[in-house]
């Protein structure tokens, strides 16, 4: 469920980067103020533990598939919210850099999706409330299970919102939600199972570790109001940034259409290669009544249709990408790629001979 750079817009990526950077700075400040520098080695090694644990699988009964630990919830339980958020952020940074999971711009989104909910919503307001001062086996099981499910549902919902706001994918909000949430319900149940197994093991073997984490001063002073304020602020900023971008670039589609139609006159001379190609295309067209064969044909249709049916006004705008532009675009694109790789080979050759 890592977001990818390819699917987000600069506005969404930028806002989420800012939010995440702010949270990281806030957590670092909290750690410094709380004299929790002693947790630094523990955080580092636990982050590495999450890495190692993710590579160990177990078989899920009756399905034949296997599952593994995600890690957000267990880190929050062992380290408290601030240190856990930093640890999750560091794990995701390494994954982005070495495994190309997500990307550098999407890193903000990923850290927020996978870190914010477990550390600042689920752990303080669900897990701690359920487990309470005197943990029992049932409470730990319930807390870890519900916590993991809620955390992953919120994270998956974050992915959906970021994707839909970015507008690169065509997936409508409702379809994407219906796709993502059930998948992450299943993942959440597995995560809850693993987390509770792990917490119960620690609780039986070395209960003092959990007590130490629960008593961490970091959890004090974190109120529901603060968390809500952060979320509302984020929503406002996102909305502001998006509307600003929306006015600057009407929409990816409109914008690209405006661009291509603006260049029509410039790059569509009536003769030349593309004209003959267009003629060839007209001859070979196996969808003759498709109505988009060339700009010349579409324009009269627009002129005719405009007076009678206002609804058609938008449709004829499509063929603005006429055959001529397409041909020169394809040709130019191929040439550009060849040039880019040619430069690469030259550099490599020069490098080898040097």
């Amino acid at each position: 469920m890592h977001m990818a750079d390819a699917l987000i817009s600069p506005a969404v990526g930028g806002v989420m980067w800012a939010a995440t950077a702010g949270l990281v700075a806030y957590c670092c400040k909290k750690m410094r103020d709380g004299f929790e520098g002693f947790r630094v080695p523990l955080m580092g090694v636990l982050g590495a533990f999450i890495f190692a644990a993710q590579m160990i699988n177990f078989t899920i009964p009756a399905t034949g598939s296997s599952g593994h630990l995600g890690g957000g919830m267990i880190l929050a339980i062992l380290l408290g919210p601030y240190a856990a958020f930093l640890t999750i952020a560091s794990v995701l940074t390494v994954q982005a850099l070495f495994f190309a999971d997500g990307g550098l711009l999407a890193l903000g989104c990923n850290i927020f999706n996978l870190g914010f909910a477990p550390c600042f919503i689920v752990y303080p307001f669900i897990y701690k409330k359920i487990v309470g001062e005197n943990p029992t086996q049932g409470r730990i099981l319930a807390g870890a299970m519900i916590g993991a499910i809620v955390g992953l549902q919120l994270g998956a919902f974050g992915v959906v919102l970021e994707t839909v706001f970015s507008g690169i994918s065509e997936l409508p909000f409702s379809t994407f939600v219906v796709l993502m949430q059930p998948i992450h319900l299943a993942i959440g149940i597995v995560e809850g199972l693993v987390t509770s197994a792990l917490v119960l093991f620690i609780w039986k073997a070395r209960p003092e570790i959990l007590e130490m984490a629960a008593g961490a001063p970091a959890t004090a002073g974190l109120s529901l109001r603060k968390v809500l304020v952060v979320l509302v602020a984020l929503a406002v900023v996102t909305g502001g940034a998006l509307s600003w971008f929306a006015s600057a670039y009407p929409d990816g589609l409109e914008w690209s259409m405006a661009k291509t139609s603006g260049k029509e006159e410039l790059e569509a001379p009536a003769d030349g290669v593309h004209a003959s190609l267009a003629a060839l295309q007209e001859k070979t067209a196996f969808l003759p009544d498709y109505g988009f064969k060339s700009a010349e044909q579409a324009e009269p249709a627009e002129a005719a249709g405009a007076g009678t049916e206002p609804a058609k006004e938008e449709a004829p705008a499509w063929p603005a990408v006429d055959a001529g532009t397409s041909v020169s675009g394809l040709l130019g694109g191929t040439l550009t790629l060849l040039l880019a790789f040619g430069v690469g080979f030259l550099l490599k050759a020069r490098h080898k001979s040097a």
Partner: protein
Amino acid sequence: MDIERTLFEIGALDQMALQDTPLHRLDPRTKLITAMGFILTVVSFGRYELAALLPLTLYPVALAAMGDLPAGYLLRKLLIASPFALFVGMFNPLLDRTPLLFIGSVAVSGGWISFLSILTRFCLTVSAALILVGSTGFSPVCMALGRLGMPRIFAAQLLFLYRYIFVLTEEGLRMVRARNLRSFGNKGTGVRIYGHMLGQLLLRTMDRAQRIHQAMLCRGFDGEVRLVRHCRFTSTDVAFIAGWFVYFGLARAFNLPQILGGVVTRIMA
């Protein structure tokens, strides 16, 4: 994923960073800033832009060549990382069927264009990130981030994490091997044993953390990791950043392939 392979892959990328090429000699900050500029440029294109994105392939290609990074390795990493972008992107051709382009008589829908655009963005952004690490190394990237304002605790956290990934993954590898030797088919690979195994690994991890912390305190650790590394901005760095940013700007402002294609068709005519 295979544990041995994963460890090897991380190591391989860091090994590449140890080379000595013009690209490797640049300041880490230079490469980080340029990579971020590149990624921002790529994602700022509209979703139906495909041809206009292509000039940007020059950046990863030129850098990989300059830094002598193996193309096969980078391509394999791209493939491994692609599922999510593929999964979300493949709905575009299904949902958006408005014809937008003609190749001969075949109408190409907007969905396919935007899908190809997503894949191109994916290849460009991911290869930029891989090249950044492959030409710089992890600790210098962290240091560069630190110099650019990342909090020190977080920089220390990244360095710690990276150091212990190898140690703990090898420990996990031994445990998995031991479990595999003792289990037949799916017996013994269920969640019960798994929970105990992870628990053991976690306890060992925490004990290790305590030993590390004590050893560090003995050596005067005060919460900050100091890196001994020269790091200076030269005129080459300035030229590198300026050159690429001008190129990104040109590629963003003008549809270079379209112009090139127009010129070529006119010459051929």
